[in-house]
């Protein structure tokens, strides 16, 4: 661990946050335009974060501070394992299992921080978020397993690299059903409608966000930004052929995010059990068919 690496990591952290916040701002703009509004400027999220961090904030106890710090750190650490472009994987090894499990620490930290605030609304939000994890992790895991069983490597950069050489090699072509399942699961993963049970303002008063203010809300914003980066990055690396330059990567990420925002705009929210059932039935069955076809019938592989 050299000082150059630490510097690299710092730069990358900055990069993730900038990309994530820009996406959030653009997402708000897209939603507004679809709803016949003007919407805030694209840099609104930056202003929000700056403002949040400059305010005096209320903390309920040390666990709240600790939980949110742990959450953001966990997601940033996850992002370090995300291959952005050639030679742009700061932490080298990029085992997909590591990414999936390290991401969980973000959720755990967030859950811990907000439930330490002692508000039942926040806790219901967390219980919904965790329950929803049940819904999307299984289809997602199945798709990843299908890829691993073809490729024989569970490194994300290997998966991305294997799609090099044109659009016909992309996994979106080779695993069409899997992509469909992943797209549904992705919608739940980033918590957009119809799976935004965690936030659900009209039901549980914004759920986990209910007690966050000041820099805690700022951290929650950053958390969402990095989460967007990681999850869209996962989709790009898994299905859209990875990228050779960082702007290609960000561009592909934006396509993924844009699709998700459009879906978000035209759907209502499921009830939580309906949401999970929907994920299992649709994403789950697509993924299962894909997995069985790939693993046992050798279809779709090279």
């Amino acid at each position, binding site marked *: 661990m050299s000082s150059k690496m630490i510097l690299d990591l710092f730069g990358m952290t900055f990069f993730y946050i900038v990309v994530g916040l820009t996406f959030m701002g653009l997402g708000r703009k897209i*939603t507004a335009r*679809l*709803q*016949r*509004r003007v919407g805030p400027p694209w840099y609104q999220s930056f202003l929000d974060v700056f403002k949040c961090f400059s305010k005096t904030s209320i903390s309920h106890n040390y666990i709240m501070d600790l939980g949110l710090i742990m959450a953001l750190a966990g997601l940033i650490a996850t992002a370090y394992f995300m291959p952005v472009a050639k030679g742009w994987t700061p932490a080298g090894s990029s085992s997909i299992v590591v990414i999936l499990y390290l991401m969980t620490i973000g959720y755990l930290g967030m859950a811990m921080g907000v439930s330490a605030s002692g508000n*039942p*609304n926040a806790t*219901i939000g967390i*219980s919904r978020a965790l329950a929803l994890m049940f819904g999307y992790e299984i289809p997602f895991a199945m798709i990843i397993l299908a890829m691993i069983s073809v490729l024989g490597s569970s490194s994300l950069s290997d998966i991305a690299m294997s799609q090099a050489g044109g659009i016909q090699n992309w996994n979106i072509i080779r695993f069409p059903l899997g992509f469909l399942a992943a797209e549904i699961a992705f919608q739940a993963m980033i918590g957009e*409608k*119809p799976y*935004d049970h965690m936030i*659900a*303002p*009209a*039901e*549980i*008063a*914004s759920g986990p966000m209910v007690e966050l203010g000041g820099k805690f809300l700022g951290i929650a914003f950053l958390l969402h930004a990095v989460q967007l980066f990681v999850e869209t990055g996962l989709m790009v690396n898994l299905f859209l052929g990875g990228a050779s330059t960082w702007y290609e990567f960000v561009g592909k990420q934006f396509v993924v995010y844009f699709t998700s925002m459009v879906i978000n*705009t*035209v*759907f*209502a*929210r*499921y*009830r*939580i059990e*309906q949401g999970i059932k929907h994920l299992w039935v649709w994403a789950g069955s697509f993924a299962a068919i894909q997995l069985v076809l790939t693993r046992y019938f050798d279809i779709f592989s090279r």
Partner: protein
Amino acid sequence: MNREIYLPDGYTTIRKIGERDGYEVYDLFFGPNHPGMHGNFGYVLDMMGTEIVRVRPNAGMLHRGFEKAMERKKWVQNLALIPRVCVVDPDPNEVAYCQAVEELLGVEAPERARYLRTITLERSRLTAFLMGMGGVGGAIGLYSATYLMMADRDRLLDMFEALTGARVYHIFNVPGGVRRDAPEGWFDGVLKVLDELESNIPDWDKLVFENPVVWARLEGLAPITEEEARRGGLVGPNLRATGAKFDVRRDAPYAAYGELDVEMHNAGDGKADALTRAVQVRLEYEATIRLIRQAIAKAKKLPSGPVRADVGPLHKLRVPKGDAYSKVESSKGEFGYYIVSNGGYTPYRVSVRGPSMPAGIHLAKTQLPGVKIDDVAAWMATLAICSPDIDR
């Protein structure tokens, strides 16, 4: 605090489970400033898991003592207060009040005024329906519906502004008629807006009423049978959604409704769940647009004339002794004013019947236990509970 607990018989067992020790049930505060709450009103929900076991309505946040205040203000001054009884649909209040005063005075509004009243009332109904349908969307997370329908509502409010100078509280009616005649070209302006609204309907259908997620959310939620609705004091679209054929506009016509053909729609037959209630509003929305066209077509042919019967100077208005009850069909159902006069400059007593009280207080206590927290906002939105008319 001596807030007593009222629980219907069917739910005593759940309460007993909850009260065996005090730790299984926890409380959630749904309102007054909850994002899912319509207005300054609240429910204190006793929850077990994510299911409600007991509801304590928490009204009174908005109470401005209108009924008391009206007793101290002159007959015409009250016109500034009454639209505030129901914010989203203010005109029925004015009309009901004015009609009751007119009944006591023994005057009748001129024909032109009655048509203007009808058109205003129906347009006010449209704004309320748009807000209601958008509210259903908002309650289940479909915020696009809220924003888009708000935009449509704004077009209607523009026409209100052109007619009355105000956007929300119009204070357009006075005892004896309306304040002023429609300006030149106003009818055509309204027709243009209606064209626009009508052209949007297919889009809203696709967005809201044919959306599979909306169906999944609302279908089977909080069903009410026709008998329950009739005996339970539910009125307006909530009642008609169950299949009951009742509409104040048809059965006790006022304003110009006697001369118009008011359509009757029933989304359900014998029973209505949340989805049926939402669809009922959607059906009536379209019917209302047609009704306004009808009214405008007739109003355009009317000879010009006064829009206000002569009742003397309004600020010196004295109303003969007696009592009168007048009701109109608002967007949420029957809105009634019971007015008692002792012959003075001010009313002796004004008593308001809002459509939300039976649903917002009584039905909440009986129907919400057993419902999940997910559905409280949707339940409120589809029943179109308007808290200001509980609080008055």
